[in-house]
């Protein structure tokens, strides 16, 4: 069944493979966020809300530039600002990271999701939530190594960046990519993005950022949203970007081994009982037992 405008290669809570004879017409795509070019203007936040018809609450100022304060069902991307005094250069650096779904090759959310087809991964690498199938359990939040999905208070369903799958499906770039004034966010095939990143890293190294590098963490099989970081050796500087994200061991256990083992255990228990019944048979109380009981009861105490 391939009615989808983007072919699905993985579905949540589905144990058989999806149809996958066809590849993605675009190949694997990726969004590259060059943190060194980002001015934190939040155009991406606005373009995201505007395109996706979302409007978050009008909050308050908490004494930081981060607004809204956190990701939400209405804010699928968010600039996180960190003022960092570099001990080596003595310079102040204003590190601004666009947070949002990383579109992992091995998505923890999809792994964790119990509802068939609520989370899918397309052949082009996009990991998408289909809220009509979402049951609102929040397992995706539990499964995500980047703490991205959020449950809406309006409908109890989980939301996150779709990488504008509706735009990509018709051959456009995501809204945040298109709007980014400085070109800090670029989009294309994953290979092209890696090449672009390599050029940027070379430029950054020439400007004294010896540890500039690409963030495409292997722990989740690589991501379809990647960062160019000036300090790739310390990703946690950027508002706690995980240094080595991976699907947590607990999630692996819970969603991996535990599932078949548990079912097997239950099945085995049933089977054991059944075989016991067949092999040994019931433990019945017969007339002799009643007789024995009667004798005892009639015995004067």
């Amino acid at each position, binding site marked *: 069944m391939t009615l989808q405008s983007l072919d699905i290669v993985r579905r949540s809570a589905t144990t058989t493979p999806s149809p996958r004879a066809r590849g993605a017409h675009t190949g694997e795509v990726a969004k590259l966020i060059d943190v060194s070019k980002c001015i934190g203007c939040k155009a991406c936040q606005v373009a995201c809300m505007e395109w996706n018809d979302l409007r978050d609450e*009008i909050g308050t100022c908490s*004494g930081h530039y981060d*607004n809204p304060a956190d990701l939400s069902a209405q804010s699928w991307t968010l600039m996180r600002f960190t003022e960092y005094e570099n001990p080596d250069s003595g310079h102040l650096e204003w590190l601004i990271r666009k947070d949002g779904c990383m579109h992992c090759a091995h998505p923890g959310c999809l792994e964790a999701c119990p509802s068939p087809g609520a989370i899918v991964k397309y052949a082009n690498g996009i990991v998408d939530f289909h809220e009509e199938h979402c049951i609102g359990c929040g397992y995706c939040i539990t499964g995500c190594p980047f703490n991205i999905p959020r449950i809406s208070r309006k409908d109890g369903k989980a939301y996150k960046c779709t990488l504008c799958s509706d735009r990509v499906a018709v051959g456009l770039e995501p809204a945040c990519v298109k709007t980014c004034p400085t*070109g800090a966010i670029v989009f294309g095939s994953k290979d092209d993005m890696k090449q672009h990143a390599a050029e940027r890293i070379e430029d950054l190294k020439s400007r004294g950022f010896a540890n500039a590098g690409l963030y495409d963490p292997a722990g989740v099989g690589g991501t379809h949203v990647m960062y160019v970081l000036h300090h790739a050796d310390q990703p946690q500087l950027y508002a706690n970007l995980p240094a080595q994200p991976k699907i947590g061991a607990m999630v692996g256990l819970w969603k991996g081994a535990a599932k078949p083992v548990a079912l097997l255990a239950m099945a085995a228990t049933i089977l054991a009982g059944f075989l016991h019944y067949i092999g040994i048979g019931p433990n019945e109380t017969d007339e002799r037992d009643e007789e024995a009981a009667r004798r005892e009861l009639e015995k004067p105490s």
Partner: protein
Amino acid sequence: MTNHWVDIKNADLVLIMGGNAAEAHPCGFKWVTEAKAHNKAKLIVVDPRFTRSASVADHYLPIRTGTDIVFLGGLIRYLLENDKIQREYVVNYTDLSFIVKDAFAFEGGLYSGYDADKRRYDKSSWDYELGADGYVRTDPTLTDPRCVYNLLKQHYARYTPEMVERVCGTPKDKTLPIWDLIASTATPTRAMTIMYALGWTQHSIGSQMIRTGAMVQLLLGNIGIAGGGMNALRGHSNIQGLTDLGLMSNLLTGYMTLPNEAEQDYDAYIAARALKPLRPNQLSYWQNYRKFFVSFMKAWWGDAATADNHWGYDYLPKLDKPYDMLQTFELMRQGKVNGYICQGFNPLAAAPNKAKMDASLAQLKYLVIMDPLATETSEFWRNAGEHNDVDPSKIQTEVFRLPTTCFAEEDGSLTNSSRWLQWHWKGANPPGEARSDLEIMGALFVRLRALYAKEGGTFPDPITKLSWPYAQPESPSAEELAKEYSGYALKDLADPKDPAKITRKAGEQLAGFAELRDDGSTASGCWIFCGAWGPTGNLMARRDNADPTGIGQTINWAWAWPANRRVLYNRASCDPAGAPFDPARVLVRWNGSAWIGADVPDYKADENPDLGMGPFIMNPEGVARFFARGAMAEGPFPEHYEPFETPLASNPLNPDQPLALNNPAARVFADDRAAFGKADAFPHVATTYRLTEHFHYWTKHCRLNAIIQPEQFVEIGEALANEIGIATGARVKVSSNRGHITAVAMVTKRIKPLTIEGKTVHTVGIPIHWGFTGVAKAGFLANTLTPVVGDGNSQTPEFKSFLVKVEKA
């Protein structure tokens, strides 16, 4: 901008100072990131705050607000002392070799001719020495002690790196490497661009700051070349166009000026503006002033403008003094103004000292607002609690609020910072009963004209005789008006060289201002826009983005004034013989018979360069001026004066002259002077600015912008926060001598205290954008705090430097 947005990508070095391009112009700033990524350019940011621009800069230097002339003056000294100037450029294309009058002098912070009572200069000594031939005397060897080069050197000798550190707070050891980097662009093959905005203009010495930056660029040979220039980043979408169209108290269209009341004689008025060349064979393009003026008057008064009535010269009001915004509000406060019309402008929010604004507006009999949004000005009479604590019953002003269309609901053109006129199209109808400004101005004028025709009245002629040829008089169309300001022939125009040949038939649109005549046979409402709607149609609507040379010229995209020229002074990108200084970035060049290239030459198109015509064709000298002559109020060379509210007791550059503490030529009204605060009561230096999330006072009405920056805050450094004992997110009260605001404190490492003259000076950042209308959280108008004093030349208020006190709320 002398250059344009895309051209920034050609720069080798970008200096952002007096502005925060990343914050206020993110999409234009992309060309800085392009220059960095693909031209290996370096970015330098000099700012009191570590801004969003600084966050992606290679080098950041802190500076005390209002002291940019000291920093740049120091840089000029550094370039001159170390001979890091592009000599061929400055000798041929600037006035460095010109000899200045002996009477010109500078002493103790004041130039010759100062009248302390009038706070004004007699500028007669501020001029060049003329030779017997009537032309300026020059010394191309630059050895004459009275040549501009030596005077300049002498003037900035005091601007040492030590002085820079004392006044600006910028450490010498950090400054010198940056100056060295800037000096590297003195070679013909390296270009630096300077990007500035209101961080320079909004000072009492703002115009002079900009001049100092321009002087640096001239010394380095960076004006007129690709990737160079002095690039003013205008704040609003059509500030450029509205200024080009002369919507200022003293202007007519195309930078023609209104007559003063002393100029009763029409020919004298023209002669004073049609400047004769000061050097041999200079174009001095303003010599054509009469053609521009007559064509303009024909566009406005049509047949009523005749040679006999001097083309309606007396229909124009004549000035006795400037009537800029600050002057008008002063008159309003004094009860001398009865009516006021605000068309898409929110002065209660945008003008300094809100308390004065409230008091002034309350003096009006009537106020008319035309706006798409509910502005604070339109509701100045409404009590909005602490944010606008007024008593409506005591305000007797009649207020009319007329709803207008917004950009999406109208056709027309806007002129951007690059001087491009771009046409846009209507996409929807306005909400409710809203009408376009054209309909409102049209209907209002038609009513006034009818009233004067019916009832008569005072001097009705300029009204009743105003040319009004529009198909729907109450609703002139954008197309009709564009054709009118561009210009058309009123009669068949004959070729001056061959009278039998008709070059333009009556009624035909003109291709450019070269076709304008001073005999009443052409009409052009704005000469610099002439050709925007030419004989081939509306060039502003062109959308060919081809860039054949790859240097970003796209000359068939829309239309740029003047004459579709994209880089001003581009002749200066070539050496005197007409060969490009940098063969890799050719804008124009002389091919032996004509000037050709990627841009429209800013020069006489067939002028042989050997004839010595200078590249600065609007100046009668033909060259750029270091010595401003009488053009500036404060003096021919920029001198540093402290802001009117300064943390210092004296001007370190002129410590013994109290008159030289602040701009001696700035106009200050008595009540405004009385409202200035002193450093003992208001010890912190404040500066106001925009945030990238908002546009002025508009986007607080937009939900999306309110979401990403919902509530008013002020930025203070960690040191000051510790001093007053608050943490980020706490509320603080910020007071000036004019009022106070309370806001959330954003405590940041990005603002550091500076050591000025041995004392610690804290900077407080006050973003504007909040007010008592809008969907964002209500807040105080930032201009509650700001002082009323303008730049000595432009009267732009000093929003960027004033004194406040910050305390726990």
